[in-house]
């Protein structure tokens, strides 16, 4: 049943596109080809750039004598909390007349930022943490004896990195780059603001007056995502037996020597541009808006509270529902190795590969067409449903780890003490899985808060989240209002990210 729900949108997309016919023409025409090429170009180049940047940063902060590396370990991961459209917004605002660059340096004749390079730079700087985090985690799980052996056999730190560490981190790098790729092809906010015409932008503009085209393009996007995911899986299967894992003592440190200054400059530069600059720009806009007549610039405190509550509320509901829905599948796949479980798992994962916009689109058209559920259009449950389909995979991975973390013999021990199935679940399994499930729920929470395109399409009228509030404020050029909401969103997700991911990374160094 869970599987069916997750498969629903994709199946509907295929069926509808087939019914409408005309899909082949749409896909062959210039309408599809241009945006498709641009989407693939942007996603591929961004993924490669993120792989390089994320891996370099991970190595610098985890394995060298870089000054302040413990602080940077946290800071370097933080651009993750800035949604792409907020980053793009900050970039535009910084370059605009009267923007931060104008105010600080007197550059008042800067060209407006737009197009491929702007989108590439924005998305690279905001999504490299998708590579940095898994690679940093992989490095800390690598047995130190591996690198020590390499060094004692006469190889320099750089050679050891190339010949031993890099091959061991390939899996993590590939997984991270894949996430970046999926993130970029499904991104709507940044490319739309920066006027780079990708598939998502085309879908959004076509969905009202030309539904068949929107559906066909949505299907195209879904196919791209699934093909990429499947090919990565095929490649990664071969690696399983050749990865070394061990917890351990402190790893060796590579002395940077004369490279210390350039390395520090790189790390400071990345953190400065990707994290400090956007926040500074948003703060500048907000302060300016607050400094002048509040009502005229459209800033009210109540404007902030309601979206904040809405965002928090729906994110929590989504997170809880996602974990509850996904847990049985996680049980089936890790405990029972069932065929059904494997299929369900694949479908849940596919949901994550599908761009949010595509899922929302499928749900919208499906609900509008179907007589029974028609009343659900733009209601709370439907929005939650779309979120869960989209982000369920994030909870799935964490749940599987949580389930497999409870040794089977504990259940057997409880059983031998005369405890029934439900009592075992309640007294043994759940308490032990709670931290893992919490992490999964937290990931869903974080993603839901930042989600834009599906929320725009599916949210009930008048139901504003921080993301949609920022978006609408931007469209009507209320930068102060956008700035305030964006700061709130960044702060909220910053706290969550810290709790979920970075704290664990920190502990590894203790």
């Amino acid at each position: 049943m869970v599987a069916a729900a997750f498969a629903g949108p994709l199946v509907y997309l295929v069926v509808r596109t087939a019914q409408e016919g005309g899909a082949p023409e749409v896909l062959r025409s210039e309408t599809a080809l241009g945006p498709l090429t641009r989407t693939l170009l942007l996603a591929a180049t961004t993924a490669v750039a993120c792989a390089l940047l994320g891996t370099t940063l991970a190595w610098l902060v985890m394995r060298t004598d870089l000054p302040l590396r413990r602080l940077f370990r946290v800071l370097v991961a933080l651009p993750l909390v800035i949604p792409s459209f907020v980053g793009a917004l900050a970039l535009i605002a910084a370059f605009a007349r009267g923007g931060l660059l104008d105010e600080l340096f007197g550059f008042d004749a800067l060209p407006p930022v737009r197009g491929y390079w702007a989108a590439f730079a924005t998305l690279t700087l905001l999504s490299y943490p998708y590579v940095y985090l898994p690679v940093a985690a992989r490095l800390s799980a690598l047995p130190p004896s591996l690198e020590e052996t390499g060094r004692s056999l006469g190889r320099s730190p750089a050679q050891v990195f190339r010949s031993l560490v890099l091959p061991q981190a390939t899996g993590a790098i590939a997984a991270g780059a894949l996430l970046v790729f999926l993130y970029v092809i499904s991104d709507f906010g940044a490319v739309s603001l920066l006027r780079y015409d990708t598939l998502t932008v085309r879908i959004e503009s076509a969905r009202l007056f030309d539904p068949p085209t929107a559906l066909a393009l949505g299907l195209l996007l879904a196919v791209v995502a699934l093909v990429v995911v499947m090919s990565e899986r095929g490649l990664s299967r071969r690696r399983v037996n050749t990865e070394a894992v061990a917890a351990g003592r402190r790893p060796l440190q590579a002395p940077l020597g004369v490279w210390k200054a350039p390395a520090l400059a790189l790390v400071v530069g990345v953190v400065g541009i990707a994290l400090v600059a956007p926040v500074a720009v948003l703060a500048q806009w907000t302060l300016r808006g607050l400094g002048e007549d509040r009502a005229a610039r459209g800033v009210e405190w109540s404007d902030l509270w309601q979206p904040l509550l809405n965002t928090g509320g729906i994110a929590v509901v989504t997170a809880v529902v996602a974990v509850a829905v996904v847990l049985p599948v996680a049980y089936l796949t890790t405990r029972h190795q069932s065929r059904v479980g494997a299929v369900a798992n694949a479908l849940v994962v596919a949901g994550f590969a599908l761009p949010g916009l595509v899922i929302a689109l499928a749900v919208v058209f499906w609900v509008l067409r179907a007589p029974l559920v028609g009343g659900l259009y733009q209601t709370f449950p439907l929005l939650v449903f779309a979120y869960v389909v989209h982000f369920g995979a994030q909870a799935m991975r964490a749940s599987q780890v949580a389930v497999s973390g409870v040794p089977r013999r504990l259940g057997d021990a409880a059983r031998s003490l005369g405890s029934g199935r439900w009592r075992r679940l309640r007294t043994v399994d759940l308490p032990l899985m709670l931290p893992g499930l919490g992490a999964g729920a937290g990931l869903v929470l974080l993603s839901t808060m930042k989600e834009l395109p599906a929320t725009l399409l599916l949210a009930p009228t008048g139901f504003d989240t921080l993301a949609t509030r920022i978006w609408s404020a931007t469209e009507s050029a209320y930068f102060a209002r956008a700035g305030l909401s964006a700061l709130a969103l960044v702060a909220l997700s910053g706290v969550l990210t810290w709790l979920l991911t970075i704290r664990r990374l920190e502990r590894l160094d203790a």
Partner: protein
Amino acid sequence: MRTIVELRELTKDFGAVRAVDRVDLDVREGEVLALLGPSGCGKTTTLRLVAGFERPDAGRIVLDGEEVAGSDRFVAPERRRVGVVFQDYALFPHLTVGHNVGYGVRDRNARDARVAEMLDLVGLTGEAARLPHELSGGQQQRVAIARALAPEPALILLDEPFSNLDAALRVRVRGEVRAILCDAAATAVFVTHDQEEALSLADRIAVMRAGRVLQVDEPGTLYAHPTDRFVATFVGDADLLPGRADGDAVTTAVGRLPTTNGDLSGDVAVALRPERVSLRLDGAGQGVVRGITYFGHDQLVEVGLEDGARVRSRMGPVRAFEPGDRVSVAVTGEVIAFRVSGTLNELTPDLASE
């Protein structure tokens, strides 16, 4: 004979803990030296200092005539020509056996020949194309040794080399490793907490405790003439009894025993090896049998004495005693005595049971 390793006043602190405390040690060319001690005694840290994975806080290390660590000198591990075999073997899982062994051989032209030679040496001829996870534990260990030996290091270090093998395999592999090191004429230092391993494999043993080296000697000397009561109880079984020394004998609860060191007087402790203790059923004896641990080829009989002390006797397989039997205790040969100041409780080394 040339000295390959010289440690002088070597010291390493981890925070407030002094892991290695002013260690002096020489390793001679061609010998196999064991660093023996309970866990946490600083033996692995000493090994890592020699390999260059840790920097000493004080003291110096001279390797093959060159100072590699000192007050103003630190040579990186890759420049030390020291091979290391890790407890977990640390085989590069993504490289074949051949590439693992050839990793440290810098001369490309000589690499293949050297790999083949090393695999012959460790008895893995023709296995070069396999991946580490396809090998058994014993085979993996031999690959790790071949890899460490391949660049012809001046010294090879082994960290708890047999702890990952099951008991049945361990004895056989120990012999194989001994033969490989001999064939390669390698100078080797290995770390272990297992006294049997140290006694059977090493040419000389350095016993460590709490960061200090207590005694360095050949296995036979170490067993027969421990200079320290910790060494006496850690290397081989021994029970400590309090006594009073005068001249060349010590008066104890089990009688007057001749000692090897005749220059002591006053309160001492004597170490009794169980194989030197014999028991006889005797209604007026000094002790009562408390328990028997039966091994088949022999047995350990534990006897409680009147003052609460304990002695053990190792005897043949015939079960002559039952718990509760009153027995008299006799000791053959000379015993080793140590000067003490304190009570019996302080005599009992905290880690004697390891």
